[in-house]
């Protein structure tokens, strides 16, 4: 596609349920990022994928959070046993360049998660 695509755009779930958020990056972009945007908190880095390398999971807030990237393209962020503090907008971004010089990140419109 022309841009980074995320789904669902909105998700309302009950506390304790699992959710999956999907990201389809720009074709050919080897780097993929997940960020979390909470009100007044800015963007919080969650996880980074680059090609076939092991992902950088240093930003995941707890073991309830996990992500995978299949075939070097589509990524899924999974949140297990959701808590109210997980409510936020989850942003995905992809980049053509990765390595010594950070490349421009292209962001999707985000998935807004509300945990009741």
């Amino acid at each position, binding site marked *: 596609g022309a841009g980074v695509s995320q789904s669902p755009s909105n998700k309302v779930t009950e506390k304790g349920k699992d959710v999956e958020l999907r990201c389809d990056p720009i074709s050919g972009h080897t780097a993929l990022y997940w960020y979390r945007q909470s009100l007044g908190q*800015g*963007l919080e880095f969650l996880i980074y994928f680059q090609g076939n390398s092991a992902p950088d999971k240093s930003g995941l807030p707890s073991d309830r959070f996990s992500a995978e990237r299949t075939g070097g393209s589509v990524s899924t962020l999974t949140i297990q046993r959701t808590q109210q503090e997980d409510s936020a907008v989850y942003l995905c971004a992809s980049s053509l360049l990765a390595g010594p*010089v950070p490349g421009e990140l292209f*962001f999707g*419109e985000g998935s807004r998660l509300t945990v009741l």
Partner: protein
Amino acid sequence: AQSVTQPDIHITVSEGASLELRCNYSYGATPYLFWYVQSPGQGLQLLLKYFSGDTLVQGIKGFEAEFKRSQSSFNLRKPSVHWSDAAEYFCAVGVGGANNLFFGTGTRLTVIP
């Protein structure tokens, strides 16, 4: 550790007035610096970036930013604001060899007629 500070949470300016959004970073070496804009309901879009060279960089939509090493700042400016500039603005710093960008908490810009 790297960090980015945007001291202004919310700024209101009149249309046609000049604008300056502040950004300060903390990092030992020369960072890679970015400004992104997020319009309501949309993803973040890159306005401009600084990697090296000329410390005054030009971006899209008439924005510019100046890297001042002595002040650890990378302030965003625009000489004349348009109503369509109303959005949230994020400053970010990247580090060579690292995998992610560190973002500030953002500055929300309101433009009044």
